[in-house]
């Protein structure tokens, strides 16, 4: 990374760390949401941006991670940090299963995407009948008073949640930066660009594609755990829904697929856009339900048509950081 990049990164880090002190609680809740989508987008990006596998059912991992940790907490009183391990294990297992089935049988592209959707929907309906975790009635976590910060049980003020999410996102960013430069990262680049050539070169494509899927699914698990303890209620209909899967992928695609900073920028732009549009529509007085989402769709359309690489590469060039944005 060049010096310019380091400067920008430093400034951003300082801003993010100081945010709870500077911003009101509304902005803080918005920022937490941005970080949540930045993190999950980053996790999804490993599978898609790095290894070229389009997953449209990533909500599966968020949901399984959330329910795993929540169920342990509600039924056995086990805290989230311990529950995290179960979440990681289950998500990795699911990812491995999907990856194995897909790659063993040569499923790719749209078919792979549909496979992921099928798994997510199947799980959603399954959980709606899963009585031990509340089925479609929902799983409610007991909410403690927020006077003090209890990091062990993830109970505390919004600022605490913000910092947890910030730490997760920063860790994901660092991890992906390291991954991109590792041998696996270069193999993935080769597989993404031309799988047959990569195979011809002797790269064990099956093994590395599986690795990408495993890493991506396991990385998504902590987001689920966070979600469970932040919202304190889980409904299969909401958390496994295909619209959640689509929300997760919008950030990286708009921000810049395969780049490190793309998911973060994309999440920020989309969340601010959504909220900004709500304000705009209210200010103009045109409060017909659906107006805001139409504008949202139009903006998405615009970005897809005119900025096919995403916003980050163009922005990075302008800021003088470098065309590939820190990869």
């Amino acid at each position, binding site marked *: 990374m060049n010096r310019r990049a380091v400067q920008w990164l430093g400034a951003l880090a300082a801003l993010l760390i100081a945010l709870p002190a500077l911003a009101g609680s509304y902005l803080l809740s918005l920022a937490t949401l941005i970080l949540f989508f930045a993190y999950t987008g980053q996790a999804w990006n490993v599978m898609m941006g790095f290894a070229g596998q389009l997953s449209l059912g990533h909500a599966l991992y968020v949901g399984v991670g959330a329910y795993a940790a929540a169920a342990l907490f509600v039924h056995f009183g086990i805290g989230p940090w311990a529950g995290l391990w179960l979440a990681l294990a289950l998500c990795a297992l699911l990812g491995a299963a999907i990856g194995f*089935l897909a790659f063993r049988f040569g499923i790719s*592209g749209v*078919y792979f*995407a549909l496979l992921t959707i099928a798994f997510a929907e199947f799980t959603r*309906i399954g959980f709606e009948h899963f009585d031990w975790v509340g089925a479609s009635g929902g799983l409610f976590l007991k909410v403690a008073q927020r006077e003090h910060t209890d990091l062990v049980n993830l109970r505390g003020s919004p600022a605490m949640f913000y910092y947890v999410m910030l730490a997760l996102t920063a860790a994901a960013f660092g991890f992906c930066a390291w991954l991109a430069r590792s041998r696996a990262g270069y193999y993935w680049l080769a597989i993404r660009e031309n799988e047959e050539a990569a195979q011809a070169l002797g790269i064990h494509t099956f093994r590395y594609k599986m690795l990408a899927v495993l890493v991506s699914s396991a990385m998504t698990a902590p987001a689920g755990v966070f979600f469970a303890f932040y919202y304190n209620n889980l409904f299969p209909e909401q958390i496994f829904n295909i619209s959640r899967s689509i929300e997760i992928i919008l950030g990286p*695609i708009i921000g810049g697929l395969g780049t490190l900073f793309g998911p973060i920028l994309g999440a920020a732009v989309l969340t601010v856009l959504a909220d900004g549009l709500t304000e705009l529509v209210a200010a103009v007085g045109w409060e017909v339900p659906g107006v805001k989402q*139409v504008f949202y*769709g139009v903006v998405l*359309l615009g970005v*897809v048509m005119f900025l096919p690489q995403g916003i980050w590469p163009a922005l990075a060039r302008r800021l003088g950081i470098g065309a590939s944005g820190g990869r």
Partner: protein
Amino acid sequence: MSLDLVANTVIGGALTGLVYGLMALGLSVIFGVVRVVNFAHGEMMTIAMYATVALFSALDLDPFVAVVPIAAAFFAAGYLLQAGLINPFITRPEHSQFMLLVALAIIIVNALLMAFGPDARTAQLDYLLDPIELGPLLIDRGKLAAAAVACVASAALFAFFRYTLTGTAIRACADNYLGAAVVGIRIRHLYALTFGLGAACVGVAGCMMVLLVDVTPALGPAYTLLAFVIVIVGGLGSLTGALLGGVLIGVSEALAGVLFVPSAKSMFSFALLVLVLLFRPQGLLGRRT
């Protein structure tokens, strides 16, 4: 578990499945030939359904009559959409296409919400309320009529692809893009034509679907998914496969509802999809590429 119940269920499922099949036919044509991942397919059908309802409530137009102008309108719209918006995206990576159509889908769903509100709408035809009795079997008139129209539309499409010059040209494009171009076929025009035909199928399917289901703006995504499941199970590029897939899905869901917990019946379609993807990815009637 009486035999009557099962028989009635299977028949109902098969009839509904034929209408689903017509919708999937549209997707098979679009996806199979033009290679566009149409993630706004269900939303297009929702537009057709709303158009039918609007014509019914405003002009008292019977859906069986409205089906013709709607099919024509959808054909034109599909042609323009492909030529204008989608064409540049054919060579783009799949996720780009997907994003384009997702954005379109969001716009469509919410524009419909703005125009029609969130309430369920329908075109209730009183003469369809009475079922046809065949001994112990009660056959829903609406389903039967809708399935009949679906069959007619499908047959027309088959005939077009089999016996007309344009149809053959389109099949050539699908089989071998480069070869078709070399031979001098106007690919861009044919792609737009094909998209138009696929859209017309969706138009007819939507018009008939109104007789079976009430329409809300949120219906789109579920139908998109269903269309993809049917196309994959039936086999991409196979027109009979799409219809067969539709019937199969219709019947299996209905049976699953009877034999197991009805609220979990959708799980079967997804399980079927996974099985087909794993063991016969070209679908039941598709050709292995």
